[in-house]
């Protein structure tokens, strides 16, 4: 297995573990508060998620208020401890409930006439030793069942008497999600195989005058003569690239023209390169700006442009 795939698997496993940590205390609490078969899967997921968000929020705020700050791993420990406590509570209450239910079932059987108590001894004699009460005729049973059915209500995953649906039906129902999962996997594989993944886009270059040199450069422009204009090119793309930089200024009759150029400057991906344009300007100029254009090495459309005005303190209100 190559390392990239392994990294991806580890990342996915960590994502899954984080999601489990987030949901664990709420689900455990919901099992404690609402025992088995009182909620269906969706309801339990919903109440579990709500409980988790609430519990972790309260824990987290308590940790923050405590002063030492939010330690995510302490929060995870709190979540796991809470989950363990809820599971223990649920187990204890389930054990207690089953004892109580047993005695209630016995009492119900006695009432129905399917068992008898032996007075004074506490003994319980269940069917088949006690004759059953004759069941109602089928038509009456059907009518009663129709009347007792929840009226146009949502079907439950369990029968009206609390027993779960049969295994075979549950097994048949499991094919649906499996089929849909297979559809999702096939679609994903087909997409991965066929799609030309679009580029992320965004800027490919940052073009600037170094701020340390900005004022000096502007003052030099004011004085005129031969001077060097520094610049920086930052390659923001994910590939190496080569650029061309040109300086333009009014040359004749106010028409702008190229006065200097750096023909090729190669910059590796993610790197920054500095350079300087050697220009000759008329002295004592304060109304002429110099434009710097950045082109790809073999293109005519600029990627970015800068403009530098001579700095003359008398012309700006201070």
């Amino acid at each position: 297995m190559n390392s990239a795939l392994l990294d991806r698997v580890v990342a996915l496993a960590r994502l899954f573990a984080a999601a489990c940590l987030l949901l664990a205390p709420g689900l455990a609490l919901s099992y404690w508060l609402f025992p088995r078969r009182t909620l269906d899967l969706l309801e339990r997921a919903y109440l579990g998620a709500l409980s988790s968000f609430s519990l972790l929020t309260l824990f987290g705020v308590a940790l923050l208020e405590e002063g030492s700050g939010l330690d995510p791993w302490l929060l995870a420990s709190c979540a796991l401890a809470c989950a363990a406590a809820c599971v223990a509570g649920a187990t204890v209450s389930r054990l207690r409930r089953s004892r109580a239910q047993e005695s209630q079932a016995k009492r119900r059987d006695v009432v129905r006439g399917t068992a008898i108590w032996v007075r004074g001894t506490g003994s319980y004699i269940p069917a088949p030793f006690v004759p059953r009460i004759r069941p109602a005729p089928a038509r009456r049973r059907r009518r009663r069942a129709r009347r007792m059915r929840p009226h146009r209500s949502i079907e439950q995953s369990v029968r009206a008497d609390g027993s779960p649906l049969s295994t075979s039906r549950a097994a048949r129902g499991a094919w649906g999600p499996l089929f849909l999962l297979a559809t999702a996997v096939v679609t994903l594989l087909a997409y991965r195989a066929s799609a030309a993944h679009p580029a992320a886009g965004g800027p490919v270059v940052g073009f600037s005058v170094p701020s340390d040199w900005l004022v000096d450069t502007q003052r030099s422009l004011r004085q005129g003569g031969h001077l060097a204009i520094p610049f920086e090119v930052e390659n923001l793309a994910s590939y190496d690239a080569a650029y061309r930089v040109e300086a333009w200024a009014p040359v004749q009759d106010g028409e702008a023209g190229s006065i200097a150029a750096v023909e090729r400057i190669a910059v590796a991906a993610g790197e920054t390169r500095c350079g300087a344009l050697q220009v000759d300007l008329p002295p004592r100029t304060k109304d002429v700006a110099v434009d710097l254009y950045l082109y790809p090495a073999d293109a005519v459309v600029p990627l970015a442009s800068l403009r530098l005005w001579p700095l003359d303190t008398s012309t700006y209100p201070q």
Partner: protein
Amino acid sequence: MSTRRSVARRDARVRWTALCAFTGAATWSLAAAADMRRLYQDGWLLEGLWLPVALALAAYVVAAVHVRRPRHVALLATALAVLLNAVPALKYAYPYAPTSDTADHVLLIRSLAVTGQADSGAAYQHTPGLHLLIAALCSWSGTLLWLWTRLFPPLLGALLPLGFYLLCARLPLPAGLARAVLALSPFALPLLYALNGTSFTAPLLVALLALLLVRESGTPGSVEGGDAGRRRCTWQVGQTVLVLALGGAIVFWHPISSLLYPMVLLAAGTIGQLRPACRRACAASGALASVGASMAAAVLVFWFCRADYVWARLIKNLRLLLEPRSTPALVPSRLGELDLVGQVHMALLFHGRDAVMLTLAGCGVLLLAWPLVRRRGIKRTEAYMYGSARRALHTYGLVWLLLLAVVCGVFAYQFGAQGYQRFLIYLVTLSPLPAGYALWRVTAALHQPSARARLRSDRTLVAAGLIAVAVLSCAQFYPYQPAVPAIEARAGDATPAVWLHLVNSEYQRQLLRYAAEELPAEAQLVVDYAGHRQARLFSGTTLQDRLRRAEQARLSPAFLLLHWPGAAGPYMEQAEFRSTAALQAWRDRRGVSTIYDNGGAFILYYPGNAVDPFRLEPPGE
């Protein structure tokens, strides 16, 4: 002539085809969006993704009207709710929207994840509920901050259909009504792909109401043995614990929601307790009032401990509420300049989904209230519901009406400003239940001669309603920027009336990084509204002391951080200052140097006194 069995078989075929199509289209959408990680603003949120999302929506409508079990409709709706929000959230590399509160939320999450402390400069430092969950998730999973800040809010969208499912299953509501409510629920979600406090707490309002109404009116479900009284007691204890925990969590999730929810619950509970007739008609009013009072007490105690928070934030928020113009206007100030068609376009882009949901929900509330007003007996269609379910629906309708009154009041007071939209989000989130009730009552009223004709008319009507809501939801969820009418910013220079498509671009990130690292530490940086927010999003509070909004510039030289509208992101300023021609004019001004350019964003330098950089006039002009 088809037999009953062949009809059922054909139904099953259609259902399974639709489900498979939905699964495939949803997987395709998510995979494509996750692959894009787009770093610039394109023309449309669904650019490059519209086909799979449209397929998924179409398959959803077909499946939702053919699936019979409400549980399966709830599952479908949950999947769609997550899909609608996750696709745009995953498509862009950074969290969506520079405006609103996204930047403040990300700032707090980052500070919690990195230092474990709430940044004192963060607006939500005293309500770090959701933020600490996301920060913990980042640490546990070892992933970058950007992933969970984009993904977690869309996942919260699943809470809304599940909340309605709990309500429908436990009251219990008729299956037809439950299907309609659940099918509508994904379209009632706020825009969860943008990190916004009001949006991510809105599903909790439904959760709170559902738990309260179910606690009072709901059936405990079947358990293994045990007597009914004990079952009911266990059920109510569980619900009470959850309600209290949730109420406590809401206090730490969002300040305005924690203020609004107790007020609404308290008001609804009080109205429900006013007269015996109200008590008979509304369920759980006592519980609503007591939970509302408990939450209000918790909020007051919390805020009492946070006096600085109250004075610093609450008063400021109230001031903002009372001064509508102090926040960027959502509705463009020059809306009146558009022709009627343009204004209708704008209205649909802003509130198309809201309008249709509120209309349906309003009809539903009227239908619910009509028997109470007429003081007549329960009709046959209403007799399908148990009395407790009907009373619970009345209470729900009452809460909806209270929120409607709040929205109308705020809208009348500050038309076009930001405040009303917050309350509209709460209202629309609550709407699927009354809206579904309206749809269901209409289908019930259409008497058809045979069961098959009835089924067909039911499906047709629900499908028509779903299609209308889905289309308008897409128009509002994914605003198509080219469809926004243009206005004239200057002579011959048109610009969109408003930017609805708000992407945080890499251009802006690089610009702000350059400003933070390369420009002199004492330099004054003047930015537009979006840039001001993005500085918090990308750089935290490191730039905050140096940043000035244009109208707050000081008497000293200034660097202006600007960008071209479009690929680099939107502008939120008035049209006159954000058109391409206006920005070009700025770059061409004499004395203003351009010292940084990355193709989409640039930095201008003005060495004089930048009192108001958008208006300053260099000498000689």
